[in-house]
């Protein structure tokens, strides 16, 4: 089942001489259980792609659909609600709100949604348990390691009903061992039914993906489907 579908998405910043084509006619799909890696040099439009995919940014032209819903037809309130219930973001760092502890950070989407505190807490606890950080629930972000922070962010991105995870260089601020751990976690979440769109510029992580999309100057330069490829399977 297609969770995310981008059709000929173009995003232009600025006007006149300052025009920047951050994305040019980008089309892309991600299905349930898939890990799609987006690669490319700095400034190639990777972050823009992710922002557009999650509705944080709106395309200049083209359509974005999440779980079958065309984002451009949604009212702002419904778009935000969709993000709250179905889409999780993980950024390079500083994902967590420093004044909330770990479990409160994971509860955040539900609390914004007006879910009862007890329910929110139960779901957050189980999301934390799934990534093996249940014992860190009461700690504050600056009391845990960078790798642990990213894991908490992932737990939050997938708490409750959320199944689409948009990760913008989640390993960018980590050393390679911790980075590998994060990739392993993302991979295992995909096995459990999540869909992950992963922005990275580290080539070796491509091996973990089902599909790799190369961006250059805002356009897709190359796209490789690894899911049927034997070498990719062996890399897991």
């Amino acid at each position, binding site marked *: 089942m297609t969770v995310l579908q981008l059709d000929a998405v173009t995003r232009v910043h600025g006007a006149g001489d300052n025009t920047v084509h951050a994305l040019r006619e980008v089309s892309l799909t991600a299905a349930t259980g898939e890990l799609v890696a987006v690669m490319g040099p700095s400034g190639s439009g990777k972050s823009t792609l992710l*922002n557009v995919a999650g509705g*944080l940014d709106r395309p200049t032209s083209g359509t974005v659909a999440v779980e079958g819903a065309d984002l451009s037809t949604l009212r702002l309130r419904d778009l935000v609600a969709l993000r709250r219930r179905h889409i999780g973001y993980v950024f390079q760092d500083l994902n967590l709100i420093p004044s909330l502890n770990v479990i409160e950070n994971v509860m955040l989407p539900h*609390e914004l949604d007006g879910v009862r505190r007890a329910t929110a807490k139960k779901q957050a606890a189980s999301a934390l348990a799934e990534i093996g950080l249940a014992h860190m629930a009461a700690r504050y972000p600056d009391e845990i390691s960078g790798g642990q922070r990213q894991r908490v962010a992932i737990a939050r991105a997938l708490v409750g009903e959320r199944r689409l995870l948009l990760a913008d260089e989640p390993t960018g601020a980590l050393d390679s061992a911790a980075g590998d751990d994060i990739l392993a976690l993302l991979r295992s979440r995909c096995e459990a039914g999540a869909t992950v769109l992963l922005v990275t510029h580290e080539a070796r992580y491509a091996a973990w993906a089902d599909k790799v999309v190369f961006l250059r100057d805002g356009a897709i330069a190359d796209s490789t489907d690894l899911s049927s490829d034997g070498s990719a399977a062996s890399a897991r």
Partner: protein
Amino acid sequence: MNGLLPVLRLSLRLSIRGIRRAKGRSALIAAMVGVPVMVFTAFFTIVTTADVSHEEGLPWTLGSADAKIFTRWYMQEGAARARPATAEELSPLLPPGSRLLRVDTANVPYRTDRWHAPIALLQVDFKDPLTRGMVRLTEGRMPTAAGEIAVSAQVVEAGARVGQDLTIGDSAAVKRVVGAVEGPPHTFLIAAPGGGVDGGRTDVSWLVDAPRPLLRHDLRNLDGHGFSAVSRAVAPASETPASGSLLWGSGNTSLAEHGPVGVLFGLTMSLIVVEVALLAGSAFMVGERRRRRELALVVAQGGEPRHVRTLMMADGLLLGALGSVLGAALGVALVFLLQPLIAAVYRPLGPFDVPWWDTATVIGLGVVSALLACLVPARRAARADTAAALAGRRIAPRSRRGLPVAGAALLVAGTAGAVAALWANGAVFLIGCLLVQLGLVLLAPTLVDLVGALSSRAPLPIRLAARDAVRHRGRTAPAVVAVTAAVAMTTAIGVSLSSTQARHERDYSPLQPLGAVVVEKAGHSREKWAEVGERLRMELRGVPLIEQSVLVSRAPGQPEHGAGSSIRIVGCAVPCVLLGGRLPVGNAALLRYLLGRNDHATSAALDAGKVIAFDPAVVRDGHVKLKRRGPTGAVDTITMPAVLAHPATGTVLKVLLPKSAANTLGLAVEPYAYVINPRDHAVGEEERQRLNAALLQVTYAGEVRIERGWPHTQTFSFALLTAAVTAVALAAALVAAGLARVDARPDIASLASVGATRRVRRLFTAGQAGIIVGSGAVVGVLLGLALGVAAYAMAARPPGRGVTSFVVSPDFGIDLPWLLLGGMVIVLPLAAMGVAALFTRAEEPLTRRLA
């Protein structure tokens, strides 16, 4: 629609943690809200506590009686006379079966280690149950015999002791102190019936024990017969209830009744709310910048704009509530702890009393102004570009360029309104001031642009600061307005005060030569006055004590009261200055004192019985003419030989009469004062106090005074105001400079990376502060000058008349307080720069790398 409650809870939790993390900024905002709340709460509490409400005062007045009937005083032939209320007279006017208890009240001085001014002496039979509750015995027992008294705590404080004797009254009667009592907030003594002292005026009143409460019609009936009364059952019409509120009340204790003072108070109050909103607003803007990423994360997790607004408003709510409640508590606590001090410098206080409604209103205002303050930052945060915030990309400030034309129009209209208030009333002045403030808010961005344009030649850090200030008008402008408003207010009050002071100085004409020591006779008897002279001579050890005398309007031996003669000097311009309206009489020593030098010729003339004139207008052909109007109304003219003298002391007296003139005119001579010639002996403050202490050994009603011209009183409240303005300006500078630093972090990081020193970074911050406070102060002073002149003109205006009557008057002069103005334009900005530079943290955190 999902519930907002969980979000509110989340917001509060985030706020609380955020406040803990940014302790300094939070404390600053809380203080901005809390300090004014504290001041106002303290003010209201003091006023309410000092104000003894009808209900609070009842037990002291009535004891356990139903009513009290007072002696009615009335004027007859220029003298106050009492209508004695006797029990026989009163009984028919009261419900049958009423019982009366007589209370005598006199005013008597008393002596401990020195004499004290007269206080109330209450004489009543305290064995009577009607007196129960009037006072509370704290030590010893109640007086029962004529020679016994009990004293209040204040008298004990002055040195009276239970078991010892106390001298009271002009006749210096000695009484045995048998008890100490507590009662109304005035110093008093109590005695058994017949335990008073001779002489002086005694008021008689009656406590009433009636079979039924005395109602309004009973009081009206009594009033019709010439007696005033207080009844337990009838609250006076003008009184507010016990929960009296200055803000909400309607009676004589409400602010609305306080006229110009109320207007000024309202002005201050509104100014403070605006100020808090502006300043705290800037501070919240800092918070918004700091929390930008946190808020973007919330949006990324599915937060709606209203969630973001709630998150931001929670800060305002919490800090506002925290600051207000703490401020109010502190205000009340301060007043409670400082009661003795307040009673000493202000006036006696009643029972401690917190005006709950007023306090709640002030707290509410504090919270509202904090919420107002974070309204704009909250809206900005809700509209912020999330993707940009997440990428750490610089967000171009979108701030209004202001509305210069509308602003200028409002400014002009407001100033015109304030000036027009001269013909109208204080409320118009208030409205004018508010319009001016509004105009300033609209004009400020343009002003900031102007400053930016002026700074193109300044050194790099300052130039950078100015450019930055212009780019971020949205945060610079409110801070500038805050400084402007505060400075304008101080300037206005300063100009008004110093002009008033200058006018008083011009108008003041000292009766005595400068530096002279003066003890006026006041109400002393001849014997007491002689005793005073003796005592002073003893203290002075050989320095001549000169007696200044006057001619009184009666013949020698005539009784004190009753019709006398009045005397006028022909040709003496009004105001014809005499001593207490009477002709001064004196000898050669007094002449030398008035002239300020030895003048043998004039002295000889005085000895020869000639009048000495100090004003050429009163001498004609070597004579002075006096017009005497006798007791019967007959007028005759007396001509006396005179010589003209030119005093070197600037005395404003017109003439000095020889002693012999008294015989010529057939009038008695009375002492007026003892003086010491400053040329004989200069008395300093220390010696004055010693002389004063000696004087108080003899009498309560005298004061050793030194003629110093118009007293220079730099009022305490003005100093307080100046301090407050300084605080506001510094806070504005700090907040705005802090905000600038948050915004300019990338700039500063770039500066640092190209090798800029810490000095440059400090200068940048100092520059921001300087620009804000400097431009605010200059505009504030200009504005304040206009408002101050208007306020002064309004105060100097003769009541009930328009502006024309004094604008043409030569007396109307403006005196500018240069020191204050210079201080605000030069020192204040420099101080702000210094403080801002000091607060600059040495180490800059690295800016976030862009993902």
